[in-house]
């Protein structure tokens, strides 16, 4: 055996250092696990303040020994390069490993191993984990709110049809591609509105009328988000252009509109739309609460979208305007053909951000008595039969919202890649 320098592990004593390092590392992990799960402290003889850090110290020493350059072992090199470049990195990696060991088993226990899912009553929940029975029993309500059970096929059918129409857009033959914008911004909203008006709301064609107050759950989340997203984008775009207009009347009306809506909390806007707005309507006219709420959120978010798009417009060099003008393009051609396609591409992340915020803002409509997913949770957790399961409910809602938002986020990233042309 060659000379061993413990401060500088090298290639010459590769196997020795590897074994020693692995042992120390395993010792660290074992120490931590024993402390955590079995309440056993193998280093009890040390002073308390050192004792607390022993797993970390063992681990760092272990990682130090296996940090060998040019070892010729591929896996080891990958490991060293990614989590073990220096002592700080090693400590940080260990910290994360400990955190995972600390969190994952209890979480898994709560979610799966100790959870109950069979049965239909509260009594079926005997384990110490989550009571998914609660979600199962209330699932219908979480999805459809107070919508009558017998009529729920109408909601399903409408959503399926809308989804089908969206899908058709994706597989549209190249010949009709140029109508795609028109299809998505004008045709689809109209179809969706008609579906909602005649199918979900009902009242004609022999369908029972279901008032909007009874709508709720995830389907309401979708309805509100869908319409707000579709309408707030073009309105925001117009506002952004208006704010940069040369005409003072347009410029200052856009400016004051944007600043007004940005300055008011959403919850106030919702209250106003529900309580104050009807007072300004002439006698005898009536506008449904849901429509008022959708208009309110749309205008509110449009102001944000406008500012995001304005950022994109300002990022474009002046030469683009000059070039388009010098080719004889007027205001609309210049913006629609040259400026907006580039500006919108730049602000995809910002728009996605605003849209995600919008989707997550929809639960606020519960303040005016519309109960979408999060609102239904509030009802369910105060039901005397099912007291004490709010945790499961909120976790469930969080997962649903996370899935929605994450897929939106992924989609926006795809768009970014798709429209990326090298500058």
């Amino acid at each position, binding site marked *: 055996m060659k000379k061993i320098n413990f401060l500088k592990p090298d290639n010459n004593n590769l196997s020795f250092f590897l074994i020693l390092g692995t042992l120390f590392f395993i010792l660290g992990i074992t120490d931590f696990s024993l402390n955590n799960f079995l309440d056993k402290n193998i280093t009890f003889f040390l002073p308390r303040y050192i004792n607390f850090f022993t797993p970390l110290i063992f681990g760092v020493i272990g990682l130090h020994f296996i940090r060998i350059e040019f070892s010729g072992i591929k896996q080891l090199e990958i490991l060293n390069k990614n989590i073990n470049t220096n002592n700080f990195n090693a400590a940080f990696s260990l910290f994360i490993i400990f955190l995972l060991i600390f969190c994952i088993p209890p979480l898994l226990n709560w979610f799966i191993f100790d959870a109950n899912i069979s049965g239909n009553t509260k009594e079926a929940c005997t384990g110490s984990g989550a009571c998914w029975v609660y979600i199962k029993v209330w699932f219908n309500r979480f999805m459809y709110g107070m919508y009558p059970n017998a009529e729920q096929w109408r909601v399903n059918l409408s959503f399926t049809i809308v989804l089908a129409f969206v899908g058709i857009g994706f597989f549209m033959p190249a010949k009709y591609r140029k109508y795609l914008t028109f299809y998505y911004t004008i045709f689809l909203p109209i179809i969706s509105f008609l579906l909602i008006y005649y199918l979900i709301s009902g009242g004609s064609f022999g369908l029972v009328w279901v008032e909007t107050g009874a709508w709720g759950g995830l389907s309401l989340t979708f309805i509100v988000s869908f319409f707000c997203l579709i309408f707030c984008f073009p309105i925001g775009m117009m506002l952004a252009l208006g704010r940069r207009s040369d005409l003072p009347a347009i410029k200052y009306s856009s400016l004051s509109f944007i600043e007004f809506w940005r300055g008011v909390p959403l919850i106030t806007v919702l209250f106003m739309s529900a309580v104050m707005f009807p007072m300004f309507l002439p006698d005898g006219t009536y506008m449904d609460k849901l429509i008022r709420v959708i208009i309110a959120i749309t205008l509110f978010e449009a102001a944000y979208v406008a500012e995001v798009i304005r950022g994109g417009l300002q990022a474009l060099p002046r030469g683009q305007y000059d070039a388009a003008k010098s080719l004889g*393009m007027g205001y609309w051609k210049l913006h629609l053909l040259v400026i907006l396609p580039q500006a919108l591409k730049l602000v995809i992340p910002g728009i996605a951000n605003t849209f995600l915020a919008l989707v997550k803002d929809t639960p606020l409509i519960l303040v005016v008595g519309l109960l979408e997913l999060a609102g239904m949770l509030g009802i369910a957790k105060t039901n005397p039969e099912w007291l004490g399961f709010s945790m499961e409910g909120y976790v469930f809602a969080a997962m649903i919202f996370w899935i929605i938002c994450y897929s939106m986020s992924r989609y926006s990233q795809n768009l970014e890649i798709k429209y990326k042309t090298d500058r």
Partner: protein
Amino acid sequence: MSEKIIQMKNVNKWFDDFHVLKDIDLNVESKQKIVVCGPSGSGKSTLIRCINRLEEHQKGSIIVDGTELSENTKNIEKIRAEVGMVFQQFNLFPHLSILDNCTLAPIWVKKMAKKDAENLAMQQLEQVQIADQSQKFPGQLSGGQQQRCAIARALCMKPKIMLFDEPTSALDPEMIKEVLDAMVNLAKAGMTMIVVTHEMGFAKEVADEVIFMDEGMIIEKASTKEFFANPKSDRTKLFLSQIL
């Protein structure tokens, strides 16, 4: 004497307090090639940007091809469609392919059929020798190629006048020649051209007249031969001695 295609009378322009153009009088005849030179900040670019009203003048009159430049937007768009412009920074549209860059304005401004516009564009790209790049995006091309594409894009509008605003200033030295060649070919084809440039070789080869500007005024305006052989003002002599 052929017709006067550009008539500038007593043109004045201010940027806030800064007097950029002072009493500019300039007549350009059809098919004439004019090179504008002068130190930076002398108002050369502003002068030619006034001709298609990318900048507004505040006093005097500019008549381009019989139409006076005024607040009337219809007139401005008409003139801009007849006056092509090439910029220092190319200003191609980065979101469109080279071919689409060239067909965009003919299709949407001149209402040309797509097929015709594409044929025309390929023809123009052929002229500047980048027809093989037509499906690429501007970001994938070299500076010289981009500038040649910008020339082709302007030519697709079939302009009567071409304005060049320092077309070679942003290019690497070895790319300057390819752009200048394209411009020389264009000049030989009989285009009316106003070129802001420091390329005196180009001026000697194609220009009918050279204008020297300083501090917003036209200091000297002479035929090319005269201008280089015996410049009249001291300022011009100094400039030429530094640049040649």
